[in-house]
């Protein structure tokens, strides 16, 4: 790729050199951001793996408790127990910026209280389900965080590669070309001046 609107002047060359320097700085900065994002992503993935394992265990435990309770109490009783639940689960989400990446953060998870409200038979299941819902919300938050980080990493990578493989080489190429043309022009100028000088010297001698 070559730049358009190229003018073969010294001013333009200086301007291009300044821009190239700025682009190189930006490239270095983006590279640093990429490394930081990679480290952050790796840490988040570790956390995700751990939390997912916990959630899976909790899910298994809730399913086990539910099937045991269902087997002992029967479908009708189990179905009517949930009637006393007041309110519903609510989650407040606020956006947060990490290294320029906007991620959703769960401010608070409000799970309806069952204390003093539920018949005793259902409380352990309610407790376990409540913990599971809380952790599921955290897992969803972490998943969104990882997705956004990965998306930003992908974009940063594209930018770094574009700068490294396309923009910087094209600037360097253009600078080299302008430099070459300007050098040729300067050489022509010197030769021309030399010829004029020789002509003037010959005229003076005659």
């Amino acid at each position, binding site marked *: 790729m070559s730049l358009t609107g190229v003018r073969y002047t010294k001013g333009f060359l200086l301007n291009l050199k300044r821009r190239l320097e700025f682009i190189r700085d930006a490239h270095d900065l983006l590279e640093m951001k990429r490394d930081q994002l990679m480290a952050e992503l790796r840490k988040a993935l570790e956390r995700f793996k751990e939390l997912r394992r916990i959630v899976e265990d909790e899910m298994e435990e809730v399913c086990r*408790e539910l*099937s*045991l*309770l*269902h*087997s*002992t*109490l*029967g*479908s*009708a*009783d189990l*179905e*009517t*127990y*949930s*009637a*006393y639940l007041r309110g519903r689960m609510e989650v407040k989400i606020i956006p947060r910026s990490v290294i320029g990446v906007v991620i959703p953060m769960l401010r608070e998870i409000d799970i309806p209280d069952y*204390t*003093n*409200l*539920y*018949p*005793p*038979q*259902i*409380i*352990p*299941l309610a*407790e376990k389900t409540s913990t599971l819902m809380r952790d599921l919300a955290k897992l969803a938050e972490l998943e969104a965080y990882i997705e956004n980080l990965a998306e930003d990493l992908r974009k940063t990578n594209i930018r770094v590669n574009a700068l490294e493989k396309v923009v910087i080489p094209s600037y360097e190429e253009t600078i080299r070309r302008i430099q070459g043309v300007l050098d040729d022009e300067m050489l022509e100028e010197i030769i021309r001046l030399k010829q004029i000088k020789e002509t003037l010297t010959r005229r003076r001698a005659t």
Partner: protein
Amino acid sequence: MTTYLVCKCHAYKSRLLPRRLILELASLSRLEEFVEILSTIYGRRLSEAKSLWDVEAALTEMFIDRLSTLLKISFENIREFLIQYYRRFEVQNLIRIMRMKIARESAERIKELIIPSERLGGMDLDPFVRARDFNEFISLLSETMYRKICEMEVENPLILESMFRWIYYRGVFDKISKIPRDDRRDAMEVLGMELDLHNIRVCMLPMLYGYDRRLAEKLLIDNPAGKSKILLMELRSIKELLEEFPRYRSFIEALMRREEWRAEIEYFRILKSEVDKKRISKYISFFYVLKYILDCEVEYRNLRSIAISIHHNLPVDVRRGLLILPRA
């Protein structure tokens, strides 16, 4: 006339499923197999069952049939006592209706959840099912034996549930005089055990789940045949409970482990084992009828538990652990 009823109960008892068959049913892998095997004993009603819900409904029907048969062959005082004794299923229905009214469920949905308790001499529950809302449900109680409930202004429905049970047990204890004199003490003892177990569970609510102690005190039910409410209110730790109720150790331990499902099984195991202990001495007494009723309920619960655990594909050893079986 009591002798006739007791003899009939002995005959009916022979139709209950043996332990070996229950264990075999618990090891089946598909609900269809369960229905197929049980249909030969339970008849057409079960063979038409297509889903778990149908199986549960068919088992309930069969259970109610067995209990209503006893009403048909009993007379006067015994019949009066049995009707009151069977009101436990009416109370169970009323509690379910109340819960569903609070959840604003439709009458059709509620109908699916209740058992046909009117066939056991109970009142017609249709007006309660069709009540527009919870307030209308409560106002309908004013013309029944549960009228005390509509006089109360209670915020927490758990207290209402407890009131239903209190009215039921008070009624049963009142009717104890209708059964033969020799059986009264034993019948009272069984009812007392039921209440003790209920009260223990309530007592443990603040210890295990942080429930308000004053609420727990309101949920306790007077027990004329067991430990008094005042004594229970004084028990502040599980250790004290275990010392006070050593024979309910397995029940209390299950609650301590927060295994409510196991506590539910232990509740019936304890009752059954206590009733079974008297089976020889009470072989030709009215108490045997109560034992037969408990055996019917245990079989109903066992079969329902097997059907549901097959549906959930629980391991065979877990399924067997959920059964209420006499020791081999």
